[in-house]
């Protein structure tokens, strides 16, 4: 205690210490080890990174990942905006129902949801039966083992994450600004496109970044609904580690993924307080 006083360390640090040590030792330490592996395995050097430019399958996988994440982000933000807008303009009881429904989805296991999509989207599943019954298609649509199924599953998972930041930015809008626009003669549509939408831009950007970050590392849904044909970076890493045992490549991809996620997270933290992002969310 004497030395601590001399160091002028706040006694509160004793309470922080246990968790800090656990995170340092069990989490950050091994992650730094992975960074190190990416430049030392199988032999020291930047060979693993050079493969990014040389290996065709690797480039194709990264392109697939980026493409799916971008489409997921755009879809989730557009649909999430619609939900957030309706929530803002709903009456008390309706609004509570909408919020409850949204929050419930955060709690439902990704495994259960992916399983459900597997049931729904099969060749003889209810979705295809309904489409055929309605005469919209003449033979079953292939939803699975392709990007379409992965996108449906991912957008379904990500929409709630887009809603929360957008909702927060809508709550920050001063209603008098909208009223002023209407008083100055702008119509409803004009007010929306020229005043309301620009005012919610921070929420849109934050929601988009958050969805993109979560999509980049997504494992369960692409692995199951893609059926091995839609290879995204997380599944690729797991194959390298668990099956082909190429730790060098896996570590290099992990470094890319982590670097991308942390850079985006940093930008996100400049836009909105991170506590708001995690406020209603679980993961």
């Amino acid at each position, binding site marked *: 205690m004497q030395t601590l006083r001399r160091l002028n360390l706040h006694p509160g640090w004793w309470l922080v210490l246990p968790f800090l040590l656990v995170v340092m030792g069990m989490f950050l330490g091994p992650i730094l080890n992975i960074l190190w592996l990416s430049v030392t395995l199988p032999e020291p050097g930047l060979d693993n990174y050079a493969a990014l430019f040389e290996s065709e399958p690797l480039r194709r996988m990264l392109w697939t990942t980026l493409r799916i994440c971008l489409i997921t982000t755009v879809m989730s933000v557009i649909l999430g905006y619609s939900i957030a807008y309706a929530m803002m303009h709903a009456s008390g009881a309706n609004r509570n129902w909408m919020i409850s429904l949204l929050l419930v989805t955060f709690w439902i296991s990704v495994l*259960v949801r992916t399983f459900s999509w597997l049931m729904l989207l099969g060749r003889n599943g209810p979705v295809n039966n309904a489409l055929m019954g309605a005469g919209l298609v003449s033979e079953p649509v292939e939803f699975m083992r392709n990007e379409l199924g992965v996108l449906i599953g991912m957008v379904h998972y990500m929409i709630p994450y887009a809603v929360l930041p957008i909702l927060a930015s809508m709550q920050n809008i001063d209603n008098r600004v909208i009223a002023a626009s209407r008083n100055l003669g702008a119509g409803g549509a004009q007010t929306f496109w020229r005043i309301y939408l620009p005012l919610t831009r921070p929420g849109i950007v934050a929601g988009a970044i958050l969805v993109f970050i979560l999509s980049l*590392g997504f494992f369960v849904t692409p692995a199951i609904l893609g059926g091995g044909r839609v290879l995204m970076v997380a599944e690729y890493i797991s194959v390298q580690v668990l099956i082909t045992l190429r730790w060098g490549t896996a570590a290099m991809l992990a470094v890319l993924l982590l670097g991308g996620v942390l850079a985006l997270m940093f930008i996100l933290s400049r836009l909105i307080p991170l506590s708001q992002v*995690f406020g209603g969310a679980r993961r």
Partner: protein
Amino acid sequence: MKPGFSTRFNRFAAWVLLMFLVLPALVAIPVSLTPRRFLSMPQGEYSLRHFETLFGSPAWMSSFAQSAVIAVSAAFLATVLGTLCAIGLWRIASRAAEAIRALLLLPLVVPPIISAMAFYRLFVPLGLMDSYAGMILAHAVLGAPLVLITVSASLAGFDPKLEQASRNLGASTFTTMRRVILPSIRPGVLAGALFAFITSWDEIVVTLFITRFSIYTLPRRMWNGIRENTDPTTAAAAVVLLAVTLVVFLIWVLLQRRARALNPQPE
């Protein structure tokens, strides 16, 4: 002002979207009631045979027990670590404390696949692969940041003068924490514990990396079932997983409501 056509259209669209978010997740329920031997939607006839198989199967039952033991232990550990840490950071309240807080939230931000690699690297030399201890530690690391967040939110509404008053009246740090701080942040602690429990209860990616033969949690057995894609017992297990999640969700909703009634705060 009467809402225009586009607003009304959007309201309808939003309800459809919310249904799209919730309903597909419930498909496991009808599928689990199919009378047939393979995964299918029931047509007219229902049967509970797959639940019978589920509850009669030693393999599935041991998975339940393992998941429950791991989730409860991990949630307990995460709650202790996260709560202590939140109180400490709250008392320090400096720039350094905020930097450390950001660092400690990293397990939430890092993609699960990278966490899985990290635990794998660590557990192989330590001999913690495929063990209860390893699973509990790993899941506690993933859950504790959530406790940190919920407890910090509760502490934000706690008046530091109460702590000073307790200290001035002669209570020790420990007594102050137990008798003054903890009772007033209990809703945050309980909410954090629930989050940590569900995090472990549903966790699959890290589990796939750090288990082999002896640890077979419910999500892991479901993962195998889904990959094989034949046995309707998987659907029955999904329903049970879903039911536990919904019960925990309801507890959380009730807690939130009670906390708001006790301590009304503008959101």
